């Protein structure tokens, strides 16, 4: 069970409309061109072709490494 609230601070949501406007501007500056053919299936096919092994969890481990270094 969740414990009683320690605070009554309001939950704050990101204004996605504003976020999208800012990110779209940034991506345009960066020259990012979305891939209209992108699908999850195609992504995974590409990874298989590039020799990525699912059991290595290489991407999620990268995130955990960014947080904790080599101390996992």
């Amino acid at each position: 069970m969740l414990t009683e609230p320690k605070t009554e601070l309001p939950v704050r949501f990101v204004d996605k409309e504003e976020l999208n406007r800012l990110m779209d501007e940034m991506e345009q500056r960066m020259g990012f061109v979305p891939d209209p053919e992108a699908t999850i299936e195609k992504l995974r096919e590409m990874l298989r072709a590039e020799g990525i092994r699912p059991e290595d969890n290489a991407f999620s481990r990268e995130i955990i490494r960014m947080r904790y270094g080599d101390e996992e």
Partner: protein
Amino acid sequence: MPTLLWDASALIKRNTLEAGSDVVDALFAALPQVTAVATLWGYAETYASLWRKRNRGDISTAFLQSALTLLRSELRLSTDWVFLTIDDAAVLTGIDLLRQHNLNATDAALLATYLRYARSQPAGSPTSVLVAADQRLLRAAGSEGLTTVDPEAVAAADIPAPLATW
């Protein structure tokens, strides 16, 4: 149906191929019946993980382009997802949490944000469930009373049942 609170360590499994990617797919398939919540920080961490892998030569630029496209369309541009703000109060609460649970400041502020969200929900609201593969974060969240799921630790076939009961 629960509200799923996503950590980048689980989110990245959608745009890649890892243990638990099929579980993450099953959770995505439940949208919009389940509410999906992330943080802008988690979005940035997911983005950074892909970018660093490309810079290191582990993935191609073509893959990066496709993965970022899907991250953009499935999360940022999708009305099925809401993003929470990690504010100064969450960072401060996080300092208390990092002392208790041996977290780093990022995980602690993220946990503080999600706990505030979960604790603010009225009685009878859908259960808030943290989805993460970061074991420290999962342990700390569990200790704080948050329901958790590690996509690496369950089978995709087992997902529909808890989704209905959480």
